[in-house]
């Protein structure tokens, strides 16, 4: 499709002043850095959310990392005569997220056009939801990590609405910055952050207007959800934890891969500060280009500092309504564009899309199909007697939680299962850069192992670790020699048996073998030519 299109449109179709064309050499710069395995996973999940307004009849799936303008069709290019089509999957995702955020759903909402000119906006307007979002008035429960002082927070969610993504501006070099902010003790001011946390919508842009930029329309028209929070966060950490919980939520729900690097989850923050004793908040400033939770946290702390400093110097009037960009390299925010007065987006109902009507039955079907959500899981694990650190670790990744649940379903001791997963297994995963789905150990095997330890078959006290390769090698050789049949099966392709051998070795060493070392040696031996 894309190729046809490129042929079909006359030659200057991607031109943007000054004389911009799609230069392949710049492309590499923006390509994926992830491994093959991860890419495959991303595609699956993106297909779910990419759906796109163009797309029930989709002919241009969005693949993160594809060459610029190779995943485009008449719809995302904004060609004359092209029309948007809404994918019902998008509505389903929105309802899921709305329910998971404890929102009230609008049984009848609609789409609107938000109008402005920008090179990454092919139609000159963005299809969004203006006055009637699909969901509103919810909240999100967050348990703060123990290292940040812990505690439970409830952050309000103002609204969840559906909209389409714009394209992406790719810039060729970084602008230079001269602004300096010195560290300033802001304890003398009480401040408040208005943190509007938003899934997606970030335009990559550089403050330096002088150089060329390119437009990549691959993601134009991709559907997304925007989630706006209440101004309930007080520190960068709180905002980052809120963001992390949202990521967890969308992954649990399966509506997005939530990857911030890829832009599947994007975050803009609005911050305003008020001096101690002042009732009203100051001017709010928007920060974009936050590509990780740590940049969310650091950008907010930086911006609080900057605003607090201006207040203390009597220069509060220099805090203006503007969009600032977080520069990771400089660890600072810089002015991207100042907002002159209130932008008039001339919203009006989108005539190309019918209204969105939800039936009570549709909603309750989706509600019934929701998985156990992170907050519920945390409370359940807590009630099992796990401490908050364990709970947060296990719930963080839905696959780890599922592994844990499957392990305790075999009757394994809760605390031991948690310890194994958080200790040896996590260390192994970390060393080998594997996810829990990639390791050969099954929850059943872990359950058996734990049971063996508990009933004394192997030593319950996992004592000093055997970390001497030659000692482990000896045991591995012994186990392989004792199980020739399994070895043959393994070499015949039944690689799952690796877990069996690992279990045997653990049994032999009474669980003391260093797992990473064990697996390394075991694999070498298993895969060695007989």
């Amino acid at each position, binding site marked *: 499709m894309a190729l*046809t*299109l490129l*042929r*079909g*449109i*006359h030659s*200057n*179709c*991607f*031109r*943007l*002043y*000054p*004389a911009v064309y799609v230069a392949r050499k710049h492309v590499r710069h923006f390509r994926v850095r992830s491994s093959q395995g991860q890419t495959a996973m991303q595609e699956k999940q993106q297909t779910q959310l990419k759906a796109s307004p163009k797309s*029930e*009849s989709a002919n241009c799936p969005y693949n993160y990392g594809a060459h610029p303008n190779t995943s485009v069709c*008449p719809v995302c*290019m*904004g*060609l*004359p*005569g*092209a*029309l*948007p*089509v*809404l994918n019902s999957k998008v509505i389903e995702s929105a309802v899921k997220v709305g329910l998971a955020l404890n929102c009230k759903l609008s049984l009848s909402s609609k789409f609107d*056009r938000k*109008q402005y*000119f920008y*090179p990454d906006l*092919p*139609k*000159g*307007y963005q299809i969004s939801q203006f006055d009637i979002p699909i969901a509103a008035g919810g909240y999100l429960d967050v348990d703060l990590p123990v290292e940040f002082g812990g505690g439970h927070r409830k952050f309000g969610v103002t609204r969840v609405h559906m909209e389409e993504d714009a394209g992406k501006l790719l810039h060729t070099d970084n602008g230079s910055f001269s602004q300096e902010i010195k560290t300033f003790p802001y304890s003398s001011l009480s401040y408040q952050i208005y943190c509007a946390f938003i899934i997606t919508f970030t335009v990559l842009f550089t403050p330096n*207007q002088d150089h060329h930029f390119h*437009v990549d*329309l691959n993601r134009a028209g991709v559907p997304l959800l925007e989630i706006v929070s209440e101004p309930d966060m007080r520190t960068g950490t709180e905002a980052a934890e809120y963001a992390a919980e949202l990521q967890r939520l969308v992954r649990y729900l399966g509506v997005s891969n939530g990857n911030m690097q890829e832009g599947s989850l994007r975050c803009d923050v609005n911050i305003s500060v008020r001096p101690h004793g002042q009732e009203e908040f100051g001017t709010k400033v928007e920060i974009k280009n936050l590509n990780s939770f740590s940049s969310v946290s650091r950008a907010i702390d930086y911006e609080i500092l900057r605003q607090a400093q201006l207040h203390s110097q009597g220069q509060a009037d220099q805090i203006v309504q503007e969009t600032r960009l977080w520069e990771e390299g400089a660890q600072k925010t810089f002015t991207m564009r100042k907002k002159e007065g*209130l932008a*008039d987006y*001339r*919203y*009006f109902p989108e*005539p*190309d*899309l*019918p209204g969105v009507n939800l039936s009570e039955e549709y909603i309750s079907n989706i509600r019934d199909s929701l998985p156990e959500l992170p907050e519920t899981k945390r409370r359940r694990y807590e009630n099992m007697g796990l401490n908050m650190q364990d709970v947060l670790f296990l719930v963080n990744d839905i696959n780890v939680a599922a592994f844990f649940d499957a392990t305790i379903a075999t009757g394994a001791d809760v605390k031991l299962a948690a310890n194994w997963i958080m200790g040896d297994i996590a260390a192994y995963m970390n060393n080998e850069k594997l996810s829990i789905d990639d390791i050969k150990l099954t929850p059943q095997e872990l359950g058996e192992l734990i049971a063996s330890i508990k009933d004394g078959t192997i030593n319950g006290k996992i004592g000093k670790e055997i970390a001497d390769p030659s000692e482990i090698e000896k045991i591995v050789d012994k186990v392989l020699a004792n199980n020739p049949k399994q070895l043959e099966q393994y070499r015949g392709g039944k690689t799952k048996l690796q877990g069996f051998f690992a279990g045997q070795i653990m049994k032999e060493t009474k669980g003391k073998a260093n797992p990473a070392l064990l697996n390394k040696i075991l694999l070498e031996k298993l895969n060695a030519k007989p």
Partner: protein
Amino acid sequence: MLSSAETPRLLRSPAALTFKCLHTSPILTPASTSPSPSQILTNRKALLSRQTSAVDLAKSLLHRLRRYEPQLSSFLYVSPDDIVLKQAEELDNRIKNNEEVGPLAGVFVGVKDNICTRDMPSTAGSRILENYRPPFDATAVRKLREMGAIVVGKTNMDEFGMGSTTEGSAYQVTANPWDLSRVPGGSSGGSAAAVSARQCMVALGSDTGGSVRQPASFCGVVGLKPTYGRVSRYGLVAYASSLDVIGCFGSSVADAGILLNAISGFDNFDATSSKQEVPDYASQFVPLDYMESKPLKGLRVGVIHETLGNGVDSEVVSSVRSAVSHLEELGCTVSEVSLPSFSLGLPAYYILASSESSSNLSRYDGVRYGNQVFGEELKSLYGDSRAEGLGSEVKMRILMGTYALSAGYYDAYYKRAQQVRTIIRNSFKDALDKNDILISPAAPSVAYKIGEKKNDPLAMYAGDIMTVNVNLAGLPALVLPCGFDGGSAGMPVGIQMIGAAFDEQHNLSRDVRSPCPWVLVENLSFVRERVTES
């Protein structure tokens, strides 16, 4: 050149062509008393019985097209002869080999230039899309081609459909075949003129506020505006999305009906297209010979009171009234209905259409395609590209629409116009509950002189009074010739018949003499017969 036996006969030939261009042509017969037969059906019969070949048909049509084009300027682009002839040749081979041919095989279609065609430029009559070639066919065009139709060219139009005279084209002014000094109407003036002069058999147009019906009336052909959503808008360059529909031109009601049948139906690419089943309009045509003396008995016809009063030319009123009395003779129950909200339609229409167009035309920014003017910065790239590429009428409507949607004015203009739209929709619904069809003139006057209203946009807008309400209500309407202004030497007058939206059609069609206007096809041709007799 066709022999007269195969030629669709004109009820009355367009005067201009008869006297100024066609005086030597043997193909035009004098005024006939029988209604125009279907060109599509006649040609199909001739092709399948091998009386004529598609190549011969194509040659004579192209010859005719090119011959009148210098006087009419109805086409912005004509397909090269060899491409048309190649398609005709393929069709001949299929017929020769007794292979199946599509229902529109050998039908030569003109397509309005705002409907995308992958092999021809699609400029919507605007400089900003000069030489723009879309990479895809509009759904309507794709369907026509799949059924064997041959697209002969792209017809002229007011830029982006904004105008009622076709003078608003950035490229050329089209003349009315009945009088070359007059406008063909608009915005689908090129399509109407081309069908009227038989430069093509049928044509596609688009109707946002009357752009099919008013030129059909001005050029003395049949124009059909389908229910909103009946035909996919995918590939129709948007003017006002909630009002736009692709419509049909034909020299007979049958042709317009057959064309509609071909392009109708739900489309995955247009979320506003309807899943309502498409009836086979053609199968419901009743040949004249089989009709009883009062074939329209029981049909309830409501004449819209507000459309026959002040501001409407007396000749137009009398033509429509005599057509109505003929309908009565054919068995219709005629009554007068009042739509008090009728006059509100015009201002509401111009606010809504301008508002939507201000948004729809934002995409012409010179960035991805179309006319681009280099600028030192982004703002001047946008500004200069649009200043140079868009015409004055288009700019005026963009400004009006931008104003109407601006913060602080939205409630007073856009929102209020939407409320008026609801009132109009409801009043039509009430009137159509009591009547099967509603009748009005298609335009308050016949075709006027080129240049006459060019500098008076309000006078031009006022001419849309008869048609805009139907778009606001989303209803189907058929326009067909019902007489002439100033006797048989004058310009054609069109009558407009408004039906209920397809949603209601099924409830009402228990009667064979369905109220759906285009089902009356041959029946309504009686109107024309009587007109020529009188």
